[in-house]
Protein backbone atom coordinates (compact mmCIF):
# COMPACT_ATOMS: atom_id res chain seq x y z
CA UNK A 1 0.00 0.00 0.00
CA UNK A 2 1.58 3.25 -0.93
CA UNK A 3 -1.12 5.34 0.65
CA UNK A 4 1.04 5.59 3.71
CA UNK A 5 3.47 8.37 3.15
CA UNK A 6 6.87 6.87 2.71
CA UNK A 7 8.42 9.19 5.24
CA UNK A 8 7.24 8.25 8.66
CA UNK A 9 8.89 11.16 10.32
CA UNK A 10 7.38 10.66 13.72
CA UNK A 11 9.97 10.50 16.41
CA UNK A 12 12.78 10.49 13.92
CA UNK A 13 15.88 12.60 13.76
CA UNK A 14 14.26 14.31 10.84
CA UNK A 15 11.53 15.56 13.10
CA UNK A 16 13.91 17.04 15.63
CA UNK A 17 15.36 19.22 12.92
CA UNK A 18 11.93 20.78 12.56
CA UNK A 19 11.30 21.64 16.18
CA UNK A 20 12.86 24.41 18.21
CA UNK A 21 13.75 24.12 21.87
CA UNK A 22 10.43 25.56 22.87
CA UNK A 23 8.59 23.03 20.76
CA UNK A 24 7.73 25.30 17.86
CA UNK A 25 8.20 24.86 14.15
CA UNK A 26 11.61 26.11 13.04
CA UNK A 27 10.60 26.12 9.39
CA UNK A 28 7.52 27.32 7.68
CA UNK A 29 4.87 24.76 6.83
CA UNK A 30 3.95 24.56 3.15
CA UNK A 31 1.74 22.49 0.89
CA UNK A 32 3.45 19.38 -0.47
CA UNK A 33 2.01 19.90 -3.90
CA UNK A 34 1.84 23.61 -4.64
CA UNK A 35 4.06 25.16 -1.97
CA UNK A 36 1.33 27.42 -0.63
CA UNK A 37 2.32 28.62 2.80
CA UNK A 38 0.18 27.19 5.58
CA UNK A 39 2.04 28.40 8.66
CA UNK A 40 4.92 30.76 9.26
CA UNK A 41 7.90 29.52 11.21
CA UNK A 42 7.53 29.77 14.94
CA UNK A 43 3.75 29.88 15.02
CA UNK A 44 2.80 26.30 15.88
CA UNK A 45 3.63 23.82 18.61
CA UNK A 46 4.50 20.19 18.03
CA UNK A 47 1.96 17.94 19.66
CA UNK A 48 1.16 14.26 19.71
CA UNK A 49 -2.35 13.08 19.18
CA UNK A 50 -3.68 10.10 17.28
CA UNK A 51 -5.83 11.40 14.46
CA UNK A 52 -7.20 9.58 11.46
CA UNK A 53 -6.89 11.47 8.21
CA UNK A 54 -8.37 10.06 4.98
CA UNK A 55 -5.87 9.42 2.24
CA UNK A 56 -4.80 12.29 0.03
CA UNK A 57 -4.82 10.05 -3.03
CA UNK A 58 -8.24 9.71 -4.51
CA UNK A 59 -7.65 6.38 -6.15
CA UNK A 60 -6.79 4.77 -2.89
CA UNK A 61 -9.48 6.42 -0.95
CA UNK A 62 -11.95 3.63 -0.72
CA UNK A 63 -10.76 0.14 -0.18
CA UNK A 64 -12.26 -1.80 -3.06
CA UNK A 65 -12.80 -4.99 -1.09
CA UNK A 66 -14.52 -3.77 2.04
CA UNK A 67 -15.44 -0.21 1.18
CA UNK A 68 -13.72 1.29 4.19
CA UNK A 69 -12.09 4.64 4.02
CA UNK A 70 -8.40 4.51 3.34
CA UNK A 71 -6.16 6.76 5.32
CA UNK A 72 -3.54 7.10 7.99
CA UNK A 73 -3.59 7.43 11.72
CA UNK A 74 -1.03 10.13 12.33
CA UNK A 75 0.35 11.26 15.65
CA UNK A 76 2.74 14.15 15.01
CA UNK A 77 0.98 17.44 14.41
CA UNK A 78 1.53 21.14 14.47
CA UNK A 79 -1.01 22.67 16.79
CA UNK A 80 -2.30 26.22 16.69
CA UNK A 81 -5.06 27.65 18.85
CA UNK A 82 -6.38 30.34 16.53
CA UNK A 83 -7.47 29.81 12.94
CA UNK A 84 -6.11 33.22 12.08
CA UNK A 85 -2.63 31.96 12.84
CA UNK A 86 -2.75 30.23 9.46
CA UNK A 87 -1.34 32.03 6.48
CA UNK A 88 -3.47 30.04 4.08
CA UNK A 89 -5.72 27.09 4.79
CA UNK A 90 -9.08 25.72 3.78
CA UNK A 91 -11.71 24.09 5.96
CA UNK A 92 -14.00 21.41 4.67
CA UNK A 93 -17.62 21.31 5.60
CA UNK A 94 -18.45 19.33 8.69
CA UNK A 95 -17.86 15.61 8.60
CA UNK A 96 -19.58 14.60 11.79
CA UNK A 97 -18.02 16.90 14.34
CA UNK A 98 -14.82 17.32 12.38
CA UNK A 99 -13.60 19.73 9.78
CA UNK A 100 -10.60 18.66 7.74
CA UNK A 101 -7.95 21.16 6.80
CA UNK A 102 -6.84 21.39 3.19
CA UNK A 103 -4.46 23.52 1.17
CA UNK A 104 -6.18 26.83 0.45
CA UNK A 105 -4.68 27.05 -3.02
CA UNK A 106 -4.63 23.61 -4.61
CA UNK A 107 -7.03 21.98 -2.14
CA UNK A 108 -4.95 18.91 -1.60
CA UNK A 109 -5.85 17.27 1.63
CA UNK A 110 -6.73 16.49 4.24
CA UNK A 111 -3.59 17.99 5.71
CA UNK A 112 -5.09 18.56 9.12
CA UNK A 113 -7.94 18.17 11.52
CA UNK A 114 -10.20 20.34 13.64
CA UNK A 115 -12.90 19.26 16.01
CA UNK A 116 -15.96 21.40 16.45
CA UNK A 117 -15.86 20.38 20.10
CA UNK A 118 -12.55 22.10 20.62
CA UNK A 119 -12.56 25.53 19.11
CA UNK A 120 -9.01 26.25 20.15
CA UNK A 121 -7.22 23.35 18.52
CA UNK A 122 -6.22 23.14 14.88
CA UNK A 123 -3.91 20.29 13.90
CA UNK A 124 -1.70 19.99 10.82
CA UNK A 125 -0.08 16.59 10.31
CA UNK A 126 3.67 16.78 9.83
CA UNK A 127 3.53 13.91 7.34
CA UNK A 128 1.05 15.74 5.14
CA UNK A 129 3.05 18.92 4.62
CA UNK A 130 6.52 20.07 3.69
CA UNK A 131 8.85 22.22 5.74
CA UNK A 132 11.16 24.83 4.36
Amino acid at each position, binding site marked *: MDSNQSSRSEGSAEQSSLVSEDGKNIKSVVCQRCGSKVLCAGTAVLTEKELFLPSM*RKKNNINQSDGTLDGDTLTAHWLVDDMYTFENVGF*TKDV*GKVKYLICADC*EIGPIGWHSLDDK*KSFYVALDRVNHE
Partner: protein
Amino acid sequence: MDSRYEIQRRAGGGAAGFGGGSATGSPALGASARRRKTPPRPADYKLQIIIIGSRGVGKTSLMERFTDDTFCEACKSTVGVDFKIKTVELRGKKIRLQIWDTAGQERFNSITSAYYRGAKGIIIVYDITKQETFEDLPKWMKMIDKYASEEAELLLVGNKLDCESDRIVTRQQAERFASRISGMRFCEASAKDNFNVDEIFLKLVDDILSKMPLEVPSRELSNSVLSLQPEPEVPPELPPPRMRCC
Protein backbone atom coordinates in the same frame (compact mmCIF):
# COMPACT_ATOMS: atom_id res chain seq x y z
CA MET B 1 9.92 44.34 -3.46
CA ASP B 2 6.51 43.47 -2.20
CA SER B 3 5.10 44.96 -5.32
CA ARG B 4 3.20 41.82 -6.15
CA TYR B 5 0.96 42.51 -3.22
CA GLU B 6 0.62 46.21 -3.56
CA ILE B 7 -1.90 47.88 -5.69
CA GLN B 8 -2.36 51.54 -6.00
CA ARG B 9 -5.47 52.87 -4.40
CA ARG B 10 -8.27 52.71 -6.94
CA ALA B 11 -5.89 51.52 -9.59
CA GLY B 12 -7.44 48.11 -9.50
CA GLY B 13 -5.86 45.62 -11.82
CA GLY B 14 -2.32 44.79 -12.55
CA ALA B 15 -1.33 43.30 -9.27
CA ALA B 16 -1.38 39.58 -9.22
CA GLY B 17 -0.49 37.52 -6.27
CA PHE B 18 -3.57 36.44 -4.45
CA GLY B 19 -4.08 32.79 -5.04
CA GLY B 20 -1.29 32.66 -7.52
CA GLY B 21 -0.83 30.05 -10.17
CA SER B 22 0.26 26.53 -9.53
CA ALA B 23 2.63 26.55 -12.44
CA THR B 24 4.46 29.63 -11.31
CA GLY B 25 4.64 28.69 -7.67
CA SER B 26 2.75 30.01 -4.74
CA PRO B 27 2.82 33.65 -3.82
CA ALA B 28 2.90 32.52 -0.24
CA LEU B 29 6.10 30.73 -0.99
CA GLY B 30 7.56 33.87 -2.40
CA ALA B 31 6.38 35.75 0.60
CA SER B 32 8.08 33.30 2.89
CA ALA B 33 11.39 33.98 1.27
CA ARG B 34 10.88 37.67 1.65
CA ARG B 35 9.69 37.52 5.18
CA ARG B 36 12.25 35.15 6.50
CA LYS B 37 14.34 37.97 7.92
CA THR B 38 11.64 39.15 10.28
CA PRO B 39 9.97 37.17 13.03
CA PRO B 40 6.41 36.09 12.39
CA ARG B 41 3.94 38.78 13.17
CA PRO B 42 0.27 38.41 13.72
CA ALA B 43 -2.11 39.62 11.13
CA ASP B 44 -2.90 43.29 11.20
CA TYR B 45 -6.46 42.81 10.06
CA LYS B 46 -8.96 40.01 9.90
CA LEU B 47 -11.71 40.42 7.37
CA GLN B 48 -14.63 38.28 6.47
CA ILE B 49 -15.68 38.13 2.84
CA ILE B 50 -18.65 36.29 1.41
CA ILE B 51 -19.36 35.29 -2.15
CA ILE B 52 -23.01 35.20 -3.21
CA GLY B 53 -24.89 34.80 -6.47
CA SER B 54 -27.25 32.48 -8.25
CA ARG B 55 -26.59 28.84 -8.84
CA GLY B 56 -23.93 27.95 -11.36
CA VAL B 57 -22.40 31.39 -11.77
CA GLY B 58 -19.01 30.19 -10.57
CA LYS B 59 -18.82 31.32 -6.96
CA THR B 60 -16.86 28.31 -5.88
CA SER B 61 -14.50 28.66 -8.79
CA LEU B 62 -13.72 32.19 -7.72
CA MET B 63 -12.74 30.95 -4.32
CA GLU B 64 -10.88 27.91 -5.50
CA ARG B 65 -7.99 27.67 -7.72
CA PHE B 66 -8.99 25.75 -10.79
CA THR B 67 -7.29 22.39 -10.87
CA ASP B 68 -8.20 19.42 -13.00
CA ASP B 69 -6.09 17.21 -10.93
CA THR B 70 -7.41 17.80 -7.47
CA PHE B 71 -6.54 15.04 -5.11
CA CYS B 72 -9.43 13.43 -3.37
CA GLU B 73 -11.84 14.82 -5.91
CA ALA B 74 -14.48 12.52 -4.57
CA CYS B 75 -14.02 13.89 -1.09
CA LYS B 76 -14.44 17.33 -2.43
CA SER B 77 -17.76 16.67 -4.03
CA THR B 78 -19.26 15.01 -1.00
CA VAL B 79 -17.72 17.12 1.71
CA GLY B 80 -16.84 20.36 0.00
CA VAL B 81 -14.94 23.40 1.14
CA ASP B 82 -16.62 25.47 3.79
CA PHE B 83 -14.35 28.48 4.00
CA LYS B 84 -10.77 29.50 3.59
CA ILE B 85 -8.26 31.59 5.41
CA LYS B 86 -6.08 33.50 2.97
CA THR B 87 -3.41 36.03 3.68
CA VAL B 88 -2.69 39.03 1.55
CA GLU B 89 -0.47 42.01 2.07
CA LEU B 90 -1.63 45.43 1.12
CA ARG B 91 -0.28 48.83 2.09
CA GLY B 92 2.29 47.12 4.26
CA LYS B 93 -0.41 45.41 6.28
CA LYS B 94 -0.87 41.73 6.65
CA ILE B 95 -4.49 40.85 6.20
CA ARG B 96 -6.16 37.56 6.93
CA LEU B 97 -9.25 36.97 4.88
CA GLN B 98 -11.88 34.51 5.90
CA ILE B 99 -13.65 33.75 2.65
CA TRP B 100 -17.04 32.07 2.59
CA ASP B 101 -18.62 30.61 -0.47
CA THR B 102 -22.37 30.16 -0.26
CA ALA B 103 -22.69 27.58 -3.02
CA GLY B 104 -25.50 25.17 -2.45
CA GLN B 105 -27.52 27.74 -0.56
CA GLU B 106 -28.65 29.76 -3.53
CA ARG B 107 -32.27 30.02 -2.68
CA PHE B 108 -32.25 33.56 -1.51
CA ASN B 109 -33.68 33.01 1.90
CA SER B 110 -31.67 29.93 2.65
CA ILE B 111 -28.45 31.79 3.27
CA THR B 112 -28.56 32.63 6.91
CA SER B 113 -28.40 36.22 7.91
CA ALA B 114 -25.30 35.35 9.90
CA TYR B 115 -23.32 35.04 6.71
CA TYR B 116 -24.06 38.62 5.87
CA ARG B 117 -23.81 40.10 9.30
CA GLY B 118 -20.08 39.86 9.82
CA ALA B 119 -19.04 40.41 6.23
CA LYS B 120 -16.83 43.38 5.53
CA GLY B 121 -16.85 42.57 1.85
CA ILE B 122 -19.50 40.98 -0.33
CA ILE B 123 -18.80 39.67 -3.81
CA ILE B 124 -21.96 39.30 -5.88
CA VAL B 125 -21.46 37.06 -8.87
CA TYR B 126 -23.50 36.60 -12.03
CA ASP B 127 -22.80 34.73 -15.24
CA ILE B 128 -22.38 36.93 -18.32
CA THR B 129 -23.85 34.14 -20.45
CA LYS B 130 -27.03 33.73 -18.40
CA GLN B 131 -29.55 36.55 -18.33
CA GLU B 132 -31.47 35.14 -15.38
CA THR B 133 -28.42 35.27 -13.13
CA PHE B 134 -28.19 38.99 -13.91
CA GLU B 135 -31.89 39.49 -13.34
CA ASP B 136 -31.52 37.87 -9.93
CA LEU B 137 -29.22 40.67 -8.77
CA PRO B 138 -31.98 42.88 -7.28
CA LYS B 139 -33.03 39.96 -5.12
CA TRP B 140 -29.50 39.55 -3.85
CA MET B 141 -29.38 43.27 -3.18
CA LYS B 142 -32.48 42.95 -1.07
CA MET B 143 -30.75 40.36 1.06
CA ILE B 144 -27.75 42.62 1.43
CA ASP B 145 -29.92 45.58 2.38
CA LYS B 146 -31.69 43.49 4.91
CA TYR B 147 -28.84 41.69 6.60
CA ALA B 148 -25.46 43.11 5.74
CA SER B 149 -23.71 45.96 7.44
CA GLU B 150 -24.08 49.25 5.62
CA GLU B 151 -20.34 49.52 5.76
CA ALA B 152 -19.81 46.36 3.75
CA GLU B 153 -17.99 46.89 0.48
CA LEU B 154 -19.78 45.49 -2.53
CA LEU B 155 -18.20 44.15 -5.66
CA LEU B 156 -20.23 42.94 -8.61
CA VAL B 157 -18.50 40.33 -10.70
CA GLY B 158 -19.57 39.22 -14.15
CA ASN B 159 -18.04 35.79 -14.33
CA LYS B 160 -17.27 33.42 -17.22
CA LEU B 161 -15.51 35.96 -19.34
CA ASP B 162 -13.87 32.98 -21.01
CA CYS B 163 -17.27 32.34 -22.64
CA GLU B 164 -17.31 35.72 -24.38
CA SER B 165 -18.87 34.25 -27.52
CA ASP B 166 -21.93 33.22 -25.50
CA ARG B 167 -22.23 36.56 -23.77
CA ILE B 168 -25.78 37.75 -23.10
CA VAL B 169 -25.25 40.43 -20.47
CA THR B 170 -23.31 43.37 -21.81
CA ARG B 171 -20.69 45.15 -19.81
CA GLN B 172 -22.69 48.36 -20.09
CA GLN B 173 -25.79 46.76 -18.58
CA ALA B 174 -23.84 45.66 -15.55
CA GLU B 175 -22.02 48.95 -15.23
CA ARG B 176 -25.38 50.68 -15.24
CA PHE B 177 -26.65 48.36 -12.54
CA ALA B 178 -23.59 48.89 -10.36
CA SER B 179 -23.64 52.64 -10.80
CA ARG B 180 -27.10 52.84 -9.29
CA ILE B 181 -25.91 51.31 -6.04
CA SER B 182 -23.74 53.56 -3.99
CA GLY B 183 -20.28 52.21 -3.43
CA MET B 184 -20.69 49.17 -5.62
CA ARG B 185 -17.78 48.35 -7.85
CA PHE B 186 -17.92 46.19 -10.92
CA CYS B 187 -15.61 44.02 -12.92
CA GLU B 188 -15.70 41.01 -15.18
CA ALA B 189 -13.65 37.93 -14.60
CA SER B 190 -12.99 34.39 -15.58
CA ALA B 191 -12.40 31.98 -12.76
CA LYS B 192 -11.63 29.35 -15.32
CA ASP B 193 -8.46 30.95 -16.54
CA ASN B 194 -7.97 32.99 -13.37
CA PHE B 195 -8.43 36.26 -15.24
CA ASN B 196 -9.00 39.10 -12.77
CA VAL B 197 -9.62 36.72 -9.89
CA ASP B 198 -6.65 37.82 -7.82
CA GLU B 199 -7.45 41.41 -8.55
CA ILE B 200 -11.02 41.02 -7.42
CA PHE B 201 -10.00 40.09 -3.93
CA LEU B 202 -7.24 42.65 -3.69
CA LYS B 203 -9.51 45.38 -4.93
CA LEU B 204 -12.15 44.51 -2.41
CA VAL B 205 -9.67 44.33 0.44
CA ASP B 206 -8.18 47.64 -0.58
CA ASP B 207 -11.62 49.24 -0.50
CA ILE B 208 -12.31 47.77 2.91
CA LEU B 209 -9.00 48.98 4.30
CA SER B 210 -9.56 52.47 3.03
CA LYS B 211 -12.70 52.64 5.13
CA MET B 212 -11.14 51.33 8.29
CA PRO B 213 -9.84 53.54 11.03
CA LEU B 214 -6.07 53.57 10.96
CA GLU B 215 -4.19 51.15 13.17
CA VAL B 216 -7.28 49.70 14.76
CA PRO B 217 -7.31 46.06 13.85
CA SER B 218 -10.63 44.39 13.62
CA ARG B 219 -11.05 41.97 16.44
CA GLU B 220 -14.68 41.24 15.98
CA LEU B 221 -14.32 37.81 14.51
CA SER B 222 -14.12 35.04 17.00
CA ASN B 223 -11.91 32.07 16.64
CA SER B 224 -14.80 29.76 16.28
CA VAL B 225 -15.81 28.23 13.01
CA LEU B 226 -19.28 28.18 14.44
CA SER B 227 -19.37 31.90 14.88
CA LEU B 228 -21.42 32.31 11.76
CA GLN B 229 -24.23 30.17 12.97
CA PRO B 230 -27.36 32.18 13.49
CA GLU B 231 -27.47 31.91 17.24
CA PRO B 232 -23.99 31.28 18.57
CA GLU B 233 -25.13 31.36 22.18
CA VAL B 234 -27.17 28.22 21.63
CA PRO B 235 -25.11 25.07 21.31
CA PRO B 236 -25.21 24.09 17.65
CA GLU B 237 -27.08 21.00 16.77
CA LEU B 238 -25.17 18.05 15.58
CA PRO B 239 -25.26 18.16 11.80
CA PRO B 240 -27.11 15.32 10.16
CA PRO B 241 -24.88 12.35 9.48
CA ARG B 242 -23.20 12.73 6.15
CA MET B 243 -21.97 10.12 3.82
CA ARG B 244 -18.49 9.19 4.68
CA CYS B 245 -15.88 10.75 2.54
CA CYS B 246 -16.12 9.37 -1.01
